[in-house]
Structures are given as structure tokens and as C-alpha cells.
């Protein structure tokens, strides 16, 4: 594993958020209604923080090459991810850098997730165990 991990790009549309509402059980109105999202001061519908974290988790799984490698995973939600009601939606990019490989076989990764050039996750780290 090299120090810089290959940046992963994920497209996010309104349909993805609706699907995530159903799959996760989080039906907060700010994830599906522009009318109610703008009422509470948001620019419009935003992605679930946990959806963005799930995409970061996909990146970690991809880098690890195994679906069960993650032993620790934490993020701070620093900015919302607005998802316009268009065919294209928006894009989240997840990059990672290996910070440390411990003697007992753990790899510590610092993650960055951006949308429109702004950091949407900060202080994001994952620790993976290679098989």
C-alpha cells in the first residue's frame, strides 16, 4: 500500500438519498424536502452525514481490499453536502493517506472528503487490519 491512496469519486443524487432514508431508517425531512430544509436555514436538501461517512467507508474498504478490514473509523461532519434536484446531483471525493503502519499489522489512514472543493468530513481516520 502506497502512502497516497487512490482518490475515490462518488456521485450523489436525490434518488440515492431517498434510498438511504429507507435503508437506514433516517427520514429526517432535511434529506428529502427542499421546502422544509430551507425553512431551517439550509440551502436545500442535504445528504445524511452518515451517507457521506458510508461513502468514505466504501473508499476504505476499496483501499483495504476486504469488506471486514476496518477496526476503527471516525469522522467529524464539518460541512453539509447539498444535493441539488438534478440528474447529475453532486459529487463527493474521498482521498486518503497512510499515516502509520504499526508492528501488530494495523494501518492508520487519514481521510479527506470534499464536495465542491470544500471539506465535508474533517478529523476523519480509519484503522484497518490487513489479512
Amino acid at each position, binding site marked *: 500500500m502506497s502512502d497516497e491512496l487512490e482518490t475515490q469519486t462518488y456521485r450523489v443524487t436525490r434518488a440515492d438519498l431517498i434510498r438511504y432514508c429507507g435503508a437506514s431508517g433516517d427520514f429526517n425531512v432535511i434529506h428529502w424536502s427542499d421546502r422544509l430544509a430551507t425553512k431551517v436555514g439550509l440551502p436545500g436538501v442535504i445528504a445524511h452525514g*452518515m451517507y457521506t461517512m458510508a461513502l468514505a467507508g466504501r473508499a476504505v474498504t476499496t483501499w483495504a481490499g476486504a469488506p471486514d478490514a*476496518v477496526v476503527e473509523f*471516525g469522522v467529524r461532519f464539518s460541512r453539509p453536502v447539498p444535493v441539488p434536484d438534478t440528474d447529475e446531483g453532486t459529487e463527493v471525493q474521498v482521498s486518503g493517506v497512510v499515516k502509520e503502519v504499526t508492528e501488530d499489522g494495523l494501518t492508520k489512514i487519514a481521510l479527506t472528503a470534499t464536495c465542491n472543493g470544500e471539506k465535508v468530513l474533517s478529523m476523519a481516520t480509519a484503522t484497518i487490519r490487513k489479512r
Partner: protein
Amino acid sequence: MPLDPSFVGRSWPPTEPYLVGREKIREFARAIGATNPEHHDPEAARAIGYADVVAPPTFPVVVTMAAGNQIVSDPALGMDYSRVVHGDERFAYARPVVAGDSLVCVNRVEEITQRGGHDFITTRTDVTTEAGEPVVTVWSKLVQRGES
């Protein structure tokens, strides 16, 4: 109204068991676009040593978010959920969640603070099987924005 600081250190009785279904894991994996065969195909999961399909890393939130209602819906805490945003989330895994697991959550409030007119609450949820095997511990920080 600020959150009641006397909740710090409080814990709740274990939640009713949540039985993790294979189709729920598949549905969650599809929703986040996770295509690894081990999330969808029991044979592929067995090939890497699990009894059934393996959940993606953030799947435990399906279980812990529902369990967290124990805390946030307590009127004595004083939370106005319409002003709440998610601050931080962290998972420490003993192993991945696997279809067939019957999971129990024990919630605890670790910290309540105030800064810049906002309230912060950090909860810790220990997720185990009904038999008591540790699966994952989840920390969640929620921010209740100040009334403007």
C-alpha cells in the same frame, strides 16, 4: 434551554434485541453502492469465514440510531430535535455485523458541554450479541444549535 448536565454518566437498560436480516444488509449495501460480494452473497461471506453476509462498516448506525431514541426522546434531557445536527461519529469494531446477529445496545451519556451558544452531547453505545459477545462500540456527538 440547555441540555440537562445531570444526564452525564447516565446509562439505560439494554434495548430489545435487533435481529439483523440478510435482506436488510443487502438493502443497506445497495443504498450506499457497496458492491463487494461479501455484502450480498452468503457463499462469498462464508469463503472469508463468516456465517452469512457481512454488513458495511457504517451499518451499525441502523441499530444504534433507533436505540438512541432512549436518550434523545427523554423530555427531561431538554433536546429540541429540530435544532440538532450530527457532529461526530466513531466506530470501534470487535468484528463486522453479520446477518443473523441478534444485537443489544447499552446507551450511556459520556459528555454534555456548551460552547458558543450551542449544546454538545456525546453518547456511547456498546453493541453486543444477546449472548454478550462484543461487536462494536459507537460514539456519537450531536450538536443542538442555539436558538436564533
